[in-house]
């Protein structure tokens, strides 16, 4: 029995109305989140349609990007996006793994928190800062000290040598990969650390009880147990690297070409959009850039969705085991 209703029916009606309004407001806001993602997909497809209709599948297979002759192909940008992200992961995975292991298994209690916070702050630094730092600090160092050495020692080797030939530009695909790596390390490390912390102590203790070393416990108990979460974290980092704009735009050199050397300038989807969008003349040019964006959306969406799905499954498992 609602006593308020017995005393004052109008009051009760007012309460019910407000309840309905508030509930509706929260529902609308929640649905808006849902429509945002759909809206992004629809509007990108709409904007990309002229280019896709004009070039058809050639858009995906052509390397040519020539605004003068109105020839646009996405291959060089897609190639750059994938290669820079792969370089970033190649560097970031072992480093993040090391940081996560250090933070969960090795660091003394007094060191855990400050180092953890410092790594997380690194994640809060906006990407344009990484870009400007990469251009003015990292690129000159690489050009003067690292790249000449790479060209001399690895350049003459068969097969892998091809990746490290040509003049040392400083900026280029490799530099972009390194800056991306520095950027995604905090993200991946933070996820890995959180995942490692969900490993039940009993499992680790039984490892130690059998006489295993710390490393053996980590490699044979902690890592296998948290495999899904670690993969999820890596994919999240990959999603971030694939879509990153500012950190890459500064240091990649912006050349629509596929070179065999990692030292040569290249471009990525996001760098191409950032550089050319406001200067694009003509509907086909603009539409081609939006089509690049749609492609990036598709790629990152699948990577991020897969990552989130993995982490979600892990969360459920952690909940059910409590």
């Amino acid at each position, binding site marked *: 029995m609602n*006593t*308020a209703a017995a005393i004052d029916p109008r009051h009760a009606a007012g309460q019910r109305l*407000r*309840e309905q309004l*508030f509930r509706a*407001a*929260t*529902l*609308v*806001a*929640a649905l*808006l*989140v*849902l429509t*945002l993602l759909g809206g*992004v997909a629809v509007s990108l497809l709409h904007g990309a349609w002229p280019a896709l209709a004009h070039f058809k599948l050639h858009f995906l297979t052509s390397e040519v990007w020539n605004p003068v002759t109105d020839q646009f192909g996405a291959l060089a940008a897609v190639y750059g996006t994938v290669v820079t992200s792969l370089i970033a992961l190649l560097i970031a995975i072992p*480093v993040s*793994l*090391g*940081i996560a*292991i250090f933070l969960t298994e*090795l660091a003394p209690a007094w060191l855990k928190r400050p180092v953890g916070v*410092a*790594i*997380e*702050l*690194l994640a*809060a*630094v*906006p990407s*344009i800062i990484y870009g*400007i*730092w990469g*251009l*003015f*600090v990292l690129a000159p160092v690489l050009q003067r000290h690292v790249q000449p050495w790479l060209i001399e020692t690895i350049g003459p080797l068969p097969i892998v040598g091809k990746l490290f030939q040509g003049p040392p530009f400083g900026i280029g695909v490799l530099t972009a990969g390194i800056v991306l790596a520095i950027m995604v390390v*905090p993200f991946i*490390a933070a996820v890995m650390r959180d995942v490692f912390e969900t490993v039940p102590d009993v499992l680790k203790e039984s490892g130690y009880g059998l006489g295993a*070393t*710390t490393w*053996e416990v980590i490699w044979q108990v902690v890592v296998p147990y948290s495999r899904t979460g670690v993969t999820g974290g890596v994919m999240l980092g990959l*999603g971030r690297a*694939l*879509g*990153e*704009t*500012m950190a890459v735009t*500064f240091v990649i050199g912006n050349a629509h070409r596929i070179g065999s050397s990692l030292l040569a300038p290249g471009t990525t989807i*996001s760098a191409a*959009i*950032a550089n050319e969008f406001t200067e694009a003349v003509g509907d086909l040019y603009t539409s081609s850039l939006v089509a690049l*964006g749609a492609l*990036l959306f598709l790629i*990152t*969406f699948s990577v*991020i*969705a897969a*990552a*989130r*799905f993995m982490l979600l499954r892990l969360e459920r498992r952690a909940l059910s085991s409590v």
Partner: protein
Amino acid sequence: MSRRFLRKLTNVLALTLSGLATAVGLFFLGAILWTLMSRGFAGMSATLFTAMTPPPGSSGGLLNAIYGSLVMTVIAILIGGPIGMLAGTYLAEYGRASPLSAVIRFVNDVLLSAPSIIVGLFVYELLVVRMGHFSAIAGAVALAMIAIPVTVRTTEDMLNLVPQGMKDASTAMGAYPWRTITSVIYPAARSGMVTGLLLAIARISGETAPLLFTALNNQFWSTNVDAPMANLPVVIFQFALSPYPNWQQLAWSGALLITLSILILSITARVVVARLGPGGNR
């Protein structure tokens, strides 16, 4: 070499490497901050906050860019904050276990890590093309789209921390859910929700990609939100890539300003969360 020795050796090597990895991570944080400080402080002066962005070769400041960034951030939070909080409320209270909430949660997580340049393209298609020109309001909408998922996530997490007993007590007294939420749950979760907003502000104040083709840039002082407006990130982008030393110097000073404000925001948010107690550490 005995097997036992080999195992110990592997152990020491692997653990040293992981310590080394942490050192490398911290080294880069230090290197970036050090460069920012040494190059940024060199250009710190009163004119930075009083003069407009200059043409190449002459001196100036970042006043119009700082103002533009503040305006767009405020508008973005005014749009994104309430939407994010309401949506977070739906997820935590009304639709807690519904399948719709599971889908929304998933979509929100995807939006949380979606590339920001895509958001810029979306708002370009949605607003700039329709309105026919770049504008600060389009920039603010793009930033709001990035702030929404952050706010949704933190609001839901913080509301979930409110003890069920408090909600039950309110319900038992005959309060409708909206009354329970606004008079019991929100006050209890207030500091957490403020933290969420701080994090959202920190997240959007350095975003560059979504502003490139929404707010664009403006060399001059402008308070018209229906016109292109200067903003720190885009100014940094343009000035850093220019060949002019005075522009590059301003870019470094701007970069330092942004980074310092973001670090202060994040640390404040962290302190607030830490004060919430062990339950507030999510």
